[in-house]
């Protein structure tokens, strides 16, 4: 059952990721990116990371992708920029290089874990939800990084507003 779920979700994720990279129109790319995000959220659920799965759905599929869509609508790319992607030579170089990268990664992955280690249970006690465990870690051990990240978000907000505001001159 778990294996079937994994293969279905992996297929959804991979196929829509291929569409993200190779479809011409940016709007289609965004739509398939959302499908990829949903597939990944399903995989996270399968890995018993319920909180992260929900954050993935809300933040990525919800907020980030809507931001992408919003900018595409704002720029109105369909009329201004009719998809001048991929001169043939560059496309083949890119495809070959990334395939080489994949081939390079294969033995590295095999080397780290020759046979998959067994599933433990200590971090996944019964009676404690995943959200509870994550929250406990986040607000005790990782409290300082958590606070620093809020400063990072503030900096990003200010930077975004300043960079994208209309110059009056």
């Amino acid at each position, binding site marked *: 059952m778990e294996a079937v779920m994994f293969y279905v979700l992996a297929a959804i994720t991979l196929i829509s990721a291929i569409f993200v*990279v190779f479809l011409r129109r940016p709007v289609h790319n965004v739509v398939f990116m959302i499908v990829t995000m949903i597939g990944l959220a399903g995989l996270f659920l399968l890995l018993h990371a319920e909180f992260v799965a929900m954050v993935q759905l809300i933040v990525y599929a919800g907020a980030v992708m809507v931001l992408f869509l919003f*900018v595409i609508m704002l720029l109105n790319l369909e009329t201004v920029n009719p998809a001048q992607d991929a001169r043939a030579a560059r496309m083949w170089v890119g495809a070959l290089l*990334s395939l080489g990268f994949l081939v390079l990664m294969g033995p590295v992955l095999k080397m780290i874990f020759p046979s998959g280690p067994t599933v433990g249970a200590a971090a996944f006690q019964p009676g404690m939800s995943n959200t509870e465990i994550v929250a406990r870690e986040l607000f005790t051990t990782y409290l300082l990084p958590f606070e620093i990240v809020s400063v990072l978000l503030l900096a990003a907000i200010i930077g975004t507003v300043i960079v994208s505001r209309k110059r009056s001159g």
Partner: protein
Amino acid sequence: MVTLQHYLFLSAVLFTLGVAGVMIRRNLIVILMSLELMLNAVNLSFIAFAKYLDSIEGQIFVLFIMVVAAAEVAVGLAIGVAVFRQRGTVDVNDINLMKW
């Protein structure tokens, strides 16, 4: 039986697709999207490691990666909008003022 290998391989393929997108596509927004794809591939391997090595740290790390990715997308898209206002295009072949 789904092992760690399966997840790592899926993650590697997703990451490679992201790399291919960055190298093949010339649209600034699609390149940013491919970056997101790579970050998500890394997230997947973090979560898989968290499960199979039986520790919660991977999931915490993924939350931080998501925050950084959201900040990166916001700033990147703002830069994209600013560039579009200046040059009237988001094709990275035409945005080469600081390249050479």
